């Protein structure tokens, strides 16, 4: 046996031992890495996903509950009380007002507290109620008792105000501001100059009794929730009425006549049944363009057709559990996440919920949008990287095989027959 053969045997034995050790070490490293990834995944789910609320299935009347926001921290003083309004900013964050904090309270879409705005020191907010967020993040807040719409930047700077008597709701689009009031609503340009003011307080078709909800569609049409008249109406961008429908029994049916309270029954519409509204308040438009109205006393969200105001469906159950409502007063829609933020007044919380058929686009788009609001969104980049790695691996593998094949073909020692056999 030659020297080289001895060296070969030693090398084989030593290498085999080192290889076994290497395999063990790497197997251990792999296990640790797997555990680490598992831990990261668990933490991610824990950070974003909401814990199971109850061992018992909660009846939600067709609503899919996503999460609730109860407060800014675990401190008792930081809990929301009598939630007034919740509006989604362009970045998906949520601005909230309630009956206790006299501030605009800011949360991430995941419900983490970001901060509060109370207005500048020399011009603080008094009691902001309904709010709307512009595409640049500017916040419009109703100050009912002050008779004004306050405009604030996200840096807590005053950006002006519009004096409007008894504002009860506000909506904003790229070129319009619409303000609902006790006696009607006003269409303003972005400088606050009135374009058209509609209505007076009363029960006639061109009158209003507490406009607690206004919404602006993409085409500029305006939808109005006339709360105590229990009516919905639609207007074009210039303020010409498109349609008006009664949605239930008016809450202002009683009148003082000769010193007595007389209730007049209204007979011009079907006022009872499951589709009747009890008290329509906040209003918004979903991704499918449908009108969604918060029915305060029925503790539900009702959906209407934007073309004629016809009833589509109603969702919701009264109750304290997550996914149920107790006097919801306002609702806004986040098209990116395909969810609604509802100010659930007497449950002292904001609820984020989904309704069937609310999404724009097809089912796949909707499913992706919804999935991206959960922990899955943190997996997007690792997934893309993994996909890229697999593609690179496949390309390299194919290139190597092709190269090997070419080398074999050009090799003079191998005949075509042998190549064929290979």
């Amino acid at each position, binding site marked *: 046996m030659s020297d080289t053969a001895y060296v070969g*045997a030693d090398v084989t034995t030593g290498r085999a031992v080192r290889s076994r050790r*290497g395999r063990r070490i*790497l197997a251990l490293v792999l296990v640790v890495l797997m555990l680490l*990834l598992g831990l990261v995944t668990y933490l991610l789910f824990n950070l974003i996903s909401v814990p199971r609320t109850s061992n018992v299935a909660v009846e939600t009347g067709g609503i899919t509950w996503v999460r609730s*926001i109860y407060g800014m921290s675990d401190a008792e003083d930081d809990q929301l009380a009598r939630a007034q309004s919740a509006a989604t900013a362009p970045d998906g964050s949520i601005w909230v007002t309630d009956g206790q904090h006299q501030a605009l309270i800011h949360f991430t879409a995941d419900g983490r507290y970001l901060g509060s705005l109370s207005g500048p020191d020399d011009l603080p907010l008094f009691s902001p109620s309904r709010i709307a967020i512009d595409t640049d993040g500017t916040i419009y807040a109703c100050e009912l008792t002050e008779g004004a719409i306050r405009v604030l930047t996200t840096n807590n700077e005053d950006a002006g105000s519009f004096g409007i008597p008894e504002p009860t709701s506000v909506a904003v689009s790229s070129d319009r501001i619409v303000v609902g009031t006790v006696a009607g609503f006003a269409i303003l340009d972005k400088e606050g100059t009135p374009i058209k003011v509609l209505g007076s307080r009363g029960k006639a078709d061109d009158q209003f009794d507490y406009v607690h909800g206004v919404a602006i569609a993409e085409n500029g049409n305006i939808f109005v929730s006339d709360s105590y008249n229990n009516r919905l109406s639609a207007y074009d961008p210039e303020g010409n009425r498109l349609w008006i429908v009664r949605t239930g029994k008016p809450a202002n049916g009683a009148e003082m006549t000769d010193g007595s309270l007389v209730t007049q029954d209204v007979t011009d519409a079907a006022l009872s049944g499951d589709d009747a509204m009890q008290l329509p308040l906040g209003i918004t438009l979903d991704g499918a363009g449908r009108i969604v109205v918060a029915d305060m006393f029925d503790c539900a969200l009702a959906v209407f057709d934007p073309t004629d105001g016809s009833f589509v469906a109603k969702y919701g159950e009264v109750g304290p559990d997550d996914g149920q409502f107790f006097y919801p007063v306002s609702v806004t829609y986040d098209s990116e996440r395909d969810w609604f933020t509802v100010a659930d007044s007497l449950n002292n919380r904001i609820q984020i919920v989904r309704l069937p058929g609310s999404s724009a686009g097809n089912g796949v788009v909707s499913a992706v949008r919804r999935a991206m609001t959960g922990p899955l969104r943190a*997996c997007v*980049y690792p997934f893309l990287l*993994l996909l890229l790695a697999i593609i690179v691996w496949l390309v390299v593998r194919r290139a190597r095989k092709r190269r090997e094949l070419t080398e074999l073909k050009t090799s003079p020692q191998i005949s075509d027959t042998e190549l064929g056999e290979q």
Partner: protein
Amino acid sequence: MSETDFAQEPQSDDLSSKRAVRRPGVFDDPVVRTMSYVASGLVILFLVAIVSVMITGVVGAGNNRGPRTLAEKNLLVSGTEVANGTADVNVWNEYISSLIGVGEYGRARRAIEDGRSTVDDSIGADFTLAEARLLSAQGKYNEAIAAADKAMTQIQESYDGRIAAGGESARVANLDGMSDNFGVAILIKAYAYRDLGEWDQAIEQYDIYLKDDSTAADILIDRGNAHIKVGNEDAAEKDFRAALKFIPNSAEAIAGLDAIGAKR
């Protein structure tokens, strides 16, 4: 390349000779090499995941968070009061129920013990009842039934003792009646039997409960469903119809009638 292939490489030139005498590393083993690629990939994946959670806002600014669910909120509110040393047994009950609701069974058990040493529950046997609830939530139904029995005995003895004591104590006991927790204990037993699939015993407990509160529509529905399980559809229909008298559009009662094919 296998280990043998490597060892028997031809040494036809200088380079090959050098290779033959080189001490080969562990990375010459294809399995080790593949594993190290996978490990490197996982490390990269891990780092990208960390960057990803930052970019997608999963973590970052605004890590303060208040309660996200009703159970968390109740736990927070009652927990604060308990931490402040409240002697209100109802607050303790809510705190323990909240802990059970969020699945913190260990803390719930400790709270039961703390509550026993802090608050007098002799009238309502609240902590024994809480223990029954805890055991039930843990799926220990037989132990839950035993705890509920114990609570009922405690409540009964407390009531009898106060009556027997006479005077103001008896007057108050007569006025208040027996603690409502007695009924709660019956229901805990009924639900435990239901979850055990022991329908006859469950019905027996519902019967006891409904004797004192015949208008409890939800219990009538529960009993109706139990009657279906034992094949007594007539009794089930009677219960569903009785429930509909109190809640005219009760979806559960209507579903029960549908289940047995009875007219609505």
